[in-house]
């Protein structure tokens, strides 16, 4: 379900005034509706949960023309009630950020530079490497002669930064390939 500003307000029971107070930081009646209109009058509102620590603060994300224009604390959320720390408050700068990686990169053996590649090429080549390494290092039995059916030559770490659904299919994928060395942030 995608929440438009309108349906979001219905779902959440928030009032425009409530939003406006958190938008402009003060509650003078005349000013607040005007300020809220200025910034988000045509914006779509979706909700998200902060990607930093595990308190799970809810954040309103305003977007217009398909692009995020503002993020701020969600006043309806029981955990944070509109508050955010400096990291959560900077979510906009994480999303709208010129330093983000926007193309797959490849570094050949012994090369000194990255080179831009296409997704298809990168994924094809990775799949080839995985298959070669798996086929070469797959162990049907261990040193004691017990059946183990595992891929010895590939390891993986990650990731607590992924969504639950991604974590689930990632471990399914790795275990499908027979990996035993599967770890992530929780271990460190």
């Amino acid at each position, binding site marked *: 379900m995608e929440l438009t500003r309108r349906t979001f307000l219905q779902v959440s029971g928030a009032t425009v005034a409530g939003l406006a107070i958190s938008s402009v930081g003060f509650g003078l009646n005349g000013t607040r509706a005007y300020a809220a209109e200025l910034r988000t009058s045509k914006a779509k509102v979706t909700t998200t949960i902060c990607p930093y620590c595990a*308190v*799970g603060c809810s954040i309103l994300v305003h977007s217009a023309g398909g692009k*995020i224009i503002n993020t701020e604390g969600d006043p309806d959320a029981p955990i944070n009630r509109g508050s*955010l720390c400096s990291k959560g408050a900077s979510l906009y700068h994480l999303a709208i950020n010129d330093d983000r990686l926007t193309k797959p990169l490849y570094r050949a053996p012994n090369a000194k530079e990255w080179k831009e590649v296409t997704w298809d090429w*990168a994924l094809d080549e990775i799949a080839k*490497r995985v298959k070669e390494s798996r086929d070469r290092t797959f162990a049907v039995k261990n040193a*004691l002669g017990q059946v183990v059916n595992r891929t010895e030559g590939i390891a993986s770490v990650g990731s607590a930064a992924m969504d639950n659904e991604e974590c689930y299919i990632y471990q399914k994928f790795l*275990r499908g390939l027979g990996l*035993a060395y599967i*770890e992530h942030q929780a271990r460190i």
Partner: protein
Amino acid sequence: MTNHWVDLRNSDVILIMGSNAAENHPISFKWVSKAMDRGATLINVDPRFTKTSSKADIYARLRSGSDIPFLGGMIKYILDNKLYNEFYVANYTNGAFLVNKDFKFTDGLFSGYDPEKRKYDKSTWSYQVDENGVPIRDKSLSDPNSVIQLLKKHYARYDIDTVCKITGTDKQDLLNVYKAYTTTGAKGKSGTIMYAMGWTQHTVGTQNIRTMAMIQLLLGNIGIAGGGVNALRGESNVQGSTDHCLLFHIIPGYLKTPNATLPTLAEYNKAYTPTTKDPLSANWWGNYAKYSVSLLKAFYGDNATKENDFGYGWLPRLDAGANYSWLTIFDEMSKGKFEGFFSWGQNPACSGANSNKTRNALGKLKWLVNVNIFDNETGSFWKGPGMKPEEIGTEVFMLPCCVSVEKEGSITNSGRWGQWRYKAQEPMGESRPDGEMIDDLFKRLKAMYKSEGGAFPDPILNLSWDFYDEKGHLSTHKIAQEINGRYMSGPDKGKLVANFTKLADDGSTCSGNWLYSGSYTEDGNMMARRNNEDKSGIGLHSGWSWCWPVNRRIIYNRASVDLDGMPLDKEHPVVKWNGAKWEGDVPDGGWKPMSQEGTRLPFIMKPEGVARIFGPGLAEGPFPEHYEPLECPVEKNLLNSQRINPTIKLFSEKGEGAGKDVYMTCDPKYPFICSTYRVTEHWQTGLMTRWNKQLIELQPQNIVELSKELAKLKGINNGDKVIIKSARGQIETVAMVTSRFKPFKINGQTVHQVGTTWHYGWCTPEDGGDSANLLTPTVGDANTMIPESKAFMVNIERKG
């Protein structure tokens, strides 16, 4: 967390130890402050006077690595002054159980120790049982072999003077903490603990937490509002990624990874299904086979049949007893064991202990796939400090993933609430959701194995993978539904199960994670719920998102009532028996109160049905004992003859990679204790904050914090460039001289401690400094293998 964030407001005494919550989980303080407004006492124990300390009613300091003496002394204080909750201990814990007469503790070692293997035979760590096999109890708690009497004997050595000699805590401060916290043993009072990496990142990390859990049980603080044992987890979805078991030793829902000694599903299920002869025990893990078979059905779908053991043989198996965890991976990598490596949404070149070892290990790989939002020290390791790209043969693929607001899905917070996130914009540039990359890779590999064959293709070809919507796009909802589980046969075939009580061991149901069963049902996506009402009066907010298990917001909640089901704390009832059914939170099993027929004990996940003050499961022993950090400033452990944890793995000094794992204790070259820590404005290795202009402006570079006394001793001024060195590496950083650190008096000797943030790396920003993990040792907790980043030895010198 056994409880959740909002519940902190219900607490009468809050202990923050092993965490700097005000700095690192700032919004938690909304609820800490609410509790304080009601008159709650905030206690903070930390080596350094932190932002949390500044808010505390009582602050006490301790030397890093001495938490068990500090807390062990509290156990002695509780027992000596009879401050424990006798009702709770006798009825809801194993405090009354009689222990095997052959169980012994002598000078730091429990019965059964094998010094060669650095491991225990735990057979004497057991209970005395009656003729029916039920543990014998002495509810008067007076039998010399009862858990409580053994506990008394064990902690008799942890007297105030001895504790203070080890911890360096002021005696009066220590007593103030003990006195304030133990008031929560009174009926109707609650105390909670908020801890984080300050407890886990030690060679005795698990036992640090266990010591506190035992205190909570003695005081009757588990299962109640404002109580519990609350780990403040550090990553937005580290709870979920742990629940889904991106870890070597477990598979989704905390089931065990199969090992080579268990060739069939029957043997596997038998090995991990606990049994009990106590008719009062619910023994919930008795349902193990329902969850394991449903997981196999989720993995292999219709290809998993009774005849083929539901595909059990397709799962990889570990060698029994072997460790495949983080530190082992990089140790093996440095010896050339791996050809390929995925670093997916992580930055191990800065986040793991002993970064020099990690970074060099990456150069031994044939190929590396690095998935991230930004460039990082892992993907670009080959051009990092001291690296010669022309000599490094590792191929690197750097794949750009999108950020959280560019995709849809759920994450689970520390309080176990699974909350849904929506997509606000298309992924920037060619960046993509992680899930789509995983899907694309799997599809390619499946096609290759189908057409070309290869090593044991069966698990790949039989893996069930149908997560697409009507347009053929990967659907997060479809994945969430598989995680929840559905009926695979029968009249309800295809329908989603309501919760895990519907799962079966005959192949008629699937569930990708039994704990999440109930999160996405025929009634819809429970994680997307946004009803913020609170009918409970104690902030459960049961209609907001969804919480595992079965939307139970406070776990072990049947321990919050008396034998008739009436709340022990009438002002903050979690559950209450109204004569016909339970009201309030979802109870831990719907059985009637303990005074009635057909009841079950409240700690349903333990075969004993009660919580364990005597805990026979951990590597070091049933009662936590003090051992010094691997690198420490004292030659002798004042409590026993074992200086370090007798069960930790010591990485080899021989062979390739030798010299990387050097440890120095009481070496004049490294005289100061060091701890790594964090600031609000940065997060983990800084990957998601160092590239964020707003945050990097607030905290542009690494610092090392030291006391005025140490600064004077070393001729260092505030703002000086300094070099910190450990036996493994060094970093250049800026000195911040404060009165927040003070020298400790440890057994008559002056001991200094310093601390440094670990959010930086050479990639960006310029002059920000490199990772503090260049200093930390490759050594882990004996149970979890979490590295000891909170206590190691360094030197500090002014640069130039």
